[in-house]
């Protein structure tokens, strides 16, 4: 099921879990609005991680906590500090990419 949501002045399409269905609709403003919904105050470190995730998604690399930890962008410990309530799923939602299916 696809739903339309308005963030600021932009209208985007999401799935029922609130993940963007089309990364090309993503803007930093949309990301910031989703972060607000998730209760996260974005810093430069947060955005660095978001950029990395989008990059990987465009290269069609499946994401996992292990891969992010090995990326050199952020350690697993810091990743959890940045997005405490579920690092991979929340950061992916802010990044406008699909929810990762990895169990690791």
């Amino acid at each position: 099921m696809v739903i339309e949501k308005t963030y600021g002045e932009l209208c985007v399409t999401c799935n029922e879990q609130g993940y963007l269905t089309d990364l090309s609709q993503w803007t930093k403003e949309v990301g910031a609005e989703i972060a607000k919904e998730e209760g996260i105050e974005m810093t430069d470190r947060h955005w660095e991680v978001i950029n990395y995730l989008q990059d990987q998604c465009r290269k069609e690399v499946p994401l996992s906590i292990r891969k992010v930890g090995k990326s050199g962008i952020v350690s697993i410990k810091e990743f959890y500090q940045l997005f405490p309530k579920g690092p991979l799923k929340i950061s992916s939602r802010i990044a406008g990419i699909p929810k990762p299916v990895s169990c690791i």
Partner: protein
Amino acid sequence: MENTIENPVTKSVDDKKPIKKMMLILSKATIDNVYACFILANGARMEGIESEIFFTFFGLEAITKKKLEKLHVATVGNPGMHIPTMLGGLPGMEALATKMMKAEMEKLDIPPVGEFLEILSASGTKLWACKLAMDMFHLDKENLIDDLDGVLTVGDFYERAKGDNTHLLFI
């Protein structure tokens, strides 16, 4: 007189409280049990749920420095392997099955036991050793991984399980 009861089916799903904490007890050292436990603990953290693991009896091998990378899958007494028990007991069978299983797991991006423990620790999973089992196997803290959060009695572990929506799971 008020004698109606609320129909549970009409209650909203939102009334269900999410799991807050998973308390896992690992008592076996076969690789399939160890990974099941680690994946559950890590999966909980990934969903924002607290998790803790209590290593007891043979489960202690999974955090014993010298043994944790040498865990095996059981080829005898394990019907899931689908090989005759007598063949499973032949020399080298366990090692072969273990090697094959580890290769498959690496393909799925599942880390080796040592690295998995580091990931768990970094993600905030608490790792506890059982005091009684340590005494029984004559193990000291020095024999166990550096990331260990401490040594507990079963009473201490239950104390830590306090609170709403904590689940305990024995593996």
